[in-house]
């Protein structure tokens, strides 16, 4: 059944998005985002610095946020919806070798009229050990 705002129920859990992160994935994101910060790309530089992730280079926070956003775009885009707000905090670095599962649950419905109604989806991303690496909220307008 096509998604529409009136039929959305609070508490709906959206399908997870699972992404395996390795050095190639981080490299590809660097090219796609133009973010060539050595914290992501240069393990030798990173080993010398007192920065999150210990001696390992780390994945881009924007990449993790993109994974969380995709949980919502997968759900709303086929129905003509769009993501309108993303609020994210990164709480643990993503390391090469991590498997990141992004999850979302609908927690709010906002009634602003046709074409402006939106939902809030609480999202988080966790690694293969069940440790949360990012949390946030994504708002989406749903027809």
């Amino acid at each position: 059944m096509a998604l529409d705002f009136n039929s959305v129920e609070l508490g709906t859990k959206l399908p997870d998005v699972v992404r395996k992160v390795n050095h190639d994935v981080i490299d590809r994101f660097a090219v796609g985002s133009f973010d060539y910060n050595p914290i992501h790309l240069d393990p030798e530089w990173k080993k010398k610095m007192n920065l999150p992730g210990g001696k390992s280079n780390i994945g881009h926070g924007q990449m993790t946020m993109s994974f969380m956003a995709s949980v919502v775009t997968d759900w709303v885009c086929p129905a003509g919806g769009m993501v309108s707000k993303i609020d994210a905090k990164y709480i643990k670095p993503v390391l090469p070798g991590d498997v990141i599962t992004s999850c979302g649950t609908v927690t709010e419905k906002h009634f602003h009229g046709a074409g402006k109604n939106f939902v809030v989806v609480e999202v988080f991303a966790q690694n293969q050990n069940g440790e949360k690496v990012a949390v946030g909220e994504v708002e989406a307008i749903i027809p």
Partner: protein
Amino acid sequence: MKYERLDKYVTTEKQKKFDRDFFKNAEQYEVWDEVKIGEEYEAAQKFEVKAEDIKAFSQAVMDPNPLFNDEEYAKKTKWGGLIAHPVFYTAIGFYCTGVGPSNWIRTPGAYNPGQLNIIYDPFRVGDIITLKLKSTDKWIKRGKYYLQYQQDFIDQFGKLKTRRWPTLIVPHTRAEMEKFIAAGK
């Protein structure tokens, strides 16, 4: 070109021309002590959105959504063409940001603990985006030095497409930043 191993992922004209040396002219960047709140800047570089840019970003985030990847599919939707993944502003932001004040996102040693982003209208093919920046807050918490700023992404018609408030943890002093630069040489 730095990081030659990345060449295999380069697909767009912008990617081919972009300088990957993150610390180039880094001595011109601002540290936390030097940032003045409320100062406004406009990035010198504009971003003309092409289909290849939208597709390259969706591939970089491993999102096969046809709305971001398949022009024929997207033409039949209400959008009438490709739209960008909602986090596409990241690519525009890094591409447009130059050297010197307002280039906080490239300050050596800076990293990103979170952000708020409002998307008013998806980026689409043909948009020519101007990036405006303004420092909005800086604070100290648990020994770390935070900077928050506003980025406005405005199209060629003056329409605000996205507004965001990235937060960064940045080097406190110039001496601290120079340690990060020296380690990269």
